[in-house]
């Protein structure tokens, strides 16, 4: 079934818990297929067998067996299996097993119309102070980072660019500045609404790097197009092209990337673009 779904369009899965989600989908589609084929066959046979020209007189009583209750029971049982065996555990994992920020790569994601802002804590592992009053779009300070804060000095802030290491737990703290967005990584089977007034954690572990992924899509229409972050909730005029780019790096690449971003930061600091606006 998974192959069938994939041949229909389901992209390959790149995350560890994505497998469980796919399993749930597969089970449900088996159920659907059996029901559909079973009833479909019954339907066609009945229509053929009992057409007026063949069966002039209808039978008042019709079906006498109670097989149908058995079938309804079977549907109920499959649904119970799906609930207890698949859906509850997956959901429990999703909302209860959120890794602590020390055990995982912790990234804040702040959505806004129509971009994704990423906030990495930098080398110290602690997020610097942000303040709504410091937001200044013309200065590119989208999330109001306070560079004078000691923890904020090394924070990396990016728009629409997200890097994560492979095979490591990622914890994203998701929020939104204006309207509801949805942080969706189709290939990682991640999706979560970003709701203003609320911070919601999402966690996942990628098991394939972007490079491997790009290798595997060679020759398909997807060739050359890397992973993307989609917005899956109507959020206004350019909702349709609100997207970010996701790169799944190897551990090394990821550290290199962090280092290069940090270098850029030092340069920024000398220019003194941010930080001294204490007169707020």
């Amino acid at each position, binding site marked *: 079934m998974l192959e069938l779904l994939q041949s229909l369009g389901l992209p390959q899965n790149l995350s560890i818990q994505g497998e469980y989600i796919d399993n749930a989908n597969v089970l449900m589609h088996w159920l659907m297929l059996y029901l559909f084929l079973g009833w479909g066959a019954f339907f066609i046979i009945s229509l053929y067998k009992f057409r007026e020209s063949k069966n002039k007189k209808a039978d008042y009583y019709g079906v006498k067996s109670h097989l149908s209750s058995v079938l309804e029971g079977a549907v109920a049982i499959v649904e119970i299996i799906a609930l207890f065996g698949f859906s509850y555990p997956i959901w429990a994992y999703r909302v209860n097993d959120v890794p602590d920020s020390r055990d995982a790569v912790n990234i*804040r994601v702040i959505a806004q119309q129509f971009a994704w802002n990423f906030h990495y804590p930098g080398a110290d592992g602690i997020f610097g*102070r942000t303040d*709504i009053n410091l937001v200044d779009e013309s200065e590119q300070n989208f999330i109001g980072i306070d560079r004078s804060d000691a923890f904020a000095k090394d924070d990396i802030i990016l728009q629409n660019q997200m890097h994560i290491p492979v095979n490591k737990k990622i914890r994203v703290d998701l929020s939104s*500045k204006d309207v509801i967005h949805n942080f969706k990584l189709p290939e990682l089977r991640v999706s979560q609404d970003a709701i203003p007034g609320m911070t919601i954690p999402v966690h996942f572990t990628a098991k394939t790097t972007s490079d491997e992924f790009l290798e595997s899509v060679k020759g398909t229409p997807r060739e050359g197009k890397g992973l993307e972050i989609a917005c899956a909730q109507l959020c206004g005029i350019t909702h349709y092209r609100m997207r970010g780019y996701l790169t799944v790096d190897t551990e090394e690449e990821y550290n290199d990337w962090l280092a290069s971003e940090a270098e850029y930061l030092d340069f920024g600091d000398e220019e003194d673009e941010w930080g001294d606006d204490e007169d707020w």
Partner: protein
Amino acid sequence: MSDNHDTASMQDHVRVYLMVFGALGVLTVVTVLASYLKLSTSEGIFLALIIASVKASLVLGYFMHLITERKMIIWILVMTVFFFFVMIFLPLISNIDHAGNPTQWWKVL
């Protein structure tokens, strides 16, 4: 309503209405007084709602004749009240049982 209510039985009704009126007045005063008691918020809410419900039952039962009303209407109301509570409590519970934290976006957790 049917004609079997003759004037005499109507007068009985009227007496009941006046008694209920008195009771409602008293309960209103009690509600206000209770709000001056030094109760904790939850106790206060509980007490106020209890009194309000008693008053409501009086109005429903006597002024609106619900105690002698037909089964069908009672059932419709029971169902309505059930959905009423569903509508009030499920959103509340789901707000409490929530994966996220109600924080402002710029506050780092």
